[in-house]
């Protein structure tokens, strides 16, 4: 009798997910799918609102990567009022650096959450450990000193966000053409030197290195599992600057293949000319792909693993991250790395990279200068804008149009998790075949392996479907006639 496994909801991801695995009579995997089963419709209800509300309202899609949504919206508004990158106008140095500071602060905080809270417990205790152990609260009991450091890291990241955006969540700093404040000397010094209850930037960098070492230890002890777990192909995409290195705030979209050859490079304002989106009746989440290569060959991976695959190097101003990146590149001898669990390695490198980039910015006196906004007038109005940034989970796009009254008439958001939809499904299929296929008895640890493959992408299904609510994952087992024979719900 064939079986169907359903993981519904998938746990410790942002959003409500469900995994279905079909087994045949010999318990071999016939099919495996990640479904996204919620829908929100932010793109619809923003219509009719004044254009300047978009970065404030749309950041509320997410409580984790709200700064990315805010900045993406701000870049689109720069275009709309006629002072954006689409018009060839460079942003003033101080506002661009303030936006970058908030962006790197959020990347650090978001990656720390995903890495230490959701992934490290599995690294330390094993993916087949008891569920009550393999989460951050298990970590609290096992290693309170580590958790204390993690809490300090997140708190420091929040202070960066608060210093730039005014609040630790859903604050406002970017306005059309710039930002509404610079960084005060007091805030700068607190972040650099620490304060009562707040660690210093040097502590942050030290803790980030500790986090990377946790991965090295884990990899050393579990090399075969880490290297073979969901080793699945995909193109890799991220924004790059003029130096061919990743630029988290602005640049060209570059897509590379397994040999790191560039297969496409585009101005993100032309995204829709190069990408199409497939739909499936079993998921609300779309499947973007490069039109020129078709759906299967043209699907991209975005996020930490994609970025470290695409980037040639990092700046000399971030020497620790640069050295860590070289070690990462050496591991696959110049080829792109498709090993899904190495996403966690990449994420740990990016925590360190964010910390070092923040240190560079905090020491930049430009952040205290007063020229904060480009001036513009009605004659410059374009009524359309596109913003793209490298959000923690990958490339994020906001596209708006506004009418002459200044009200939004169209909005389209393409989020990182959507870009990763195809490669996440490939990962689920790969792990299902390796861990579940051929086994008569399905264990909790096997089901968790499926979740681990999804969690590596740190997917935000709320962002991807623009949905709100609680965030569970469910797995079920069905026979060849579709009858439920087993189910895991967490």
């Amino acid at each position, binding site marked *: 009798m064939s079986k169907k496994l359903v993981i519904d909801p998938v746990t410790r991801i942002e959003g409500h997910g469900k995994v279905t695995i079909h087994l045949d009579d010999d318990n071999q995997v016939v099919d495996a799918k990640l479904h996204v089963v919620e829908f929100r419709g932010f793109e619809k209800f923003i219509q009719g609102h004044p254009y300047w509300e978009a970065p404030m309202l749309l950041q*509320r899609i997410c409580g984790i990567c709200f700064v990315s949504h805010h900045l993406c919206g701000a870049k689109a508004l720069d275009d709309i009022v006629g002072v954006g990158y689409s018009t060839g106008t460079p942003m003033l140095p101080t506002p661009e650096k303030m936006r970058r500071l908030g962006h790197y602060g959020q990347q650090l905080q978001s990656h720390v959450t995903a890495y230490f809270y959701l992934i490290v417990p599995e690294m330390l205790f094993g993916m087949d450990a008891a569920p009550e152990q393999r989460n951050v*609260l298990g970590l609290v009991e096992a290693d309170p000193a580590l*958790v204390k450091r993690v809490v300090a890291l997140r708190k420091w990241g929040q202070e960066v966000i608060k210093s730039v955006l005014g609040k630790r969540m*859903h604050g406002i700093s970017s306005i059309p053409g710039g930002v509404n404040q610079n960084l005060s000397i007091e805030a700068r010094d607190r972040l650099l030197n620490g304060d009562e209850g707040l660690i210093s930037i040097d502590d942050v960098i030290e803790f980030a290195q500790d986090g990377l070492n946790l991965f090295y230890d884990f990899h050393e002890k579990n090399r075969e599992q880490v290297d073979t777990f969901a080793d699945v192909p995909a193109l890799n995409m991220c924004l790059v600057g003029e130096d061919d290195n990743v630029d988290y705030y602005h640049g060209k979209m570059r897509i590379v293949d397994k040999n790191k050859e560039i297969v496409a490079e585009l101005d993100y304002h032309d995204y829709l000319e190069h990408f199409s989106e497939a739909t499936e009746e079993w998921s609300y989440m779309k499947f973007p792909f490069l039109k020129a290569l078709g759906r299967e060959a043209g699907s991209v991976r975005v996020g930490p693993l994609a970025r470290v695959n695409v980037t040639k190097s990092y700046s000399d101003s971030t020497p620790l991250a640069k050295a860590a990146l070289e070690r990462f590149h050496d591991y696959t001898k110049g080829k792109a790395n498709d090993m899904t669990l190495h996403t966690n390695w990449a994420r740990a490198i990016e925590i360190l990279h964010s910390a070092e980039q923040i240190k560079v910015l905090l020491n930049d006196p430009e952040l205290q200068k007063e020229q904060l906004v480009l001036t513009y007038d009605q004659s410059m109005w374009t009524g359309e804008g596109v913003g793209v940034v490298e959000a923690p989970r990958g490339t994020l796009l906001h596209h708006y149009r506004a009418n002459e009254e200044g009200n939004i008439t169209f909005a389209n958001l393409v989020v990182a998790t959507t870009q990763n939809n195809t490669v996440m499904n490939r990962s689920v299929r790969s792990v299902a075949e390796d861990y579940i296929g051929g086994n008569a008895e399905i264990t909790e640890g096997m089901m968790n392996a499926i979740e681990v493959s999804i969690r590596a992408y740190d997917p935000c299904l709320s962002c991807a479907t623009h949905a709100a609510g609680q965030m569970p994952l469910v797995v079920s087992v069905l026979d060849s006639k579709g009858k439920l024979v087993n189910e895991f719900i967490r």
Partner: protein
Amino acid sequence: MNSSVENMAALLADYNNSDSLIYGIGNIGRQDDGLGWAFIDWLEAESICPKAELMRHYQLHLEDADMISYKKQVLFVDASKNPDLEIFQLENIKPKMDFSFTSHAISVESILATCQTCFDYMPKVQFLTIKGYEWELQQGLTIKAKENLEVTTKFFKKKHLLNKTGEDHGKT
């Protein structure tokens, strides 16, 4: 309301000092999920507990364990979906790891347990929950939730005024 509420004589007056935190949890864009913040709004409007630190956030985070480690007592206020709850409930919280953590959700009990384990300190923590009914993407409390908030605030105001007599509790 539950009977234990009546036995908690201290209530708000004891929170009127800088060592206390009153923390509203919720989202005013999700109808009755805004009850926690609405309670904080009421405290501010009535100038009750002006010396306490008042805070509004969407959800608890693990680093809140660090934050409460600097306080002697903390009152968390949130909306409740509990169908058995009549109007509101006030509980004394004991530390407990409930292993329900996601990056979007963690319980008050787990925050207190983390504070105890990582920071070797345990403030007094109470949790006030007020019954809500609707949670869609819309601003404003439902009529029934507003009524529950009114009953709750009236109860606390009465207790608060009673506690003002005699000692320097909560000058309003």
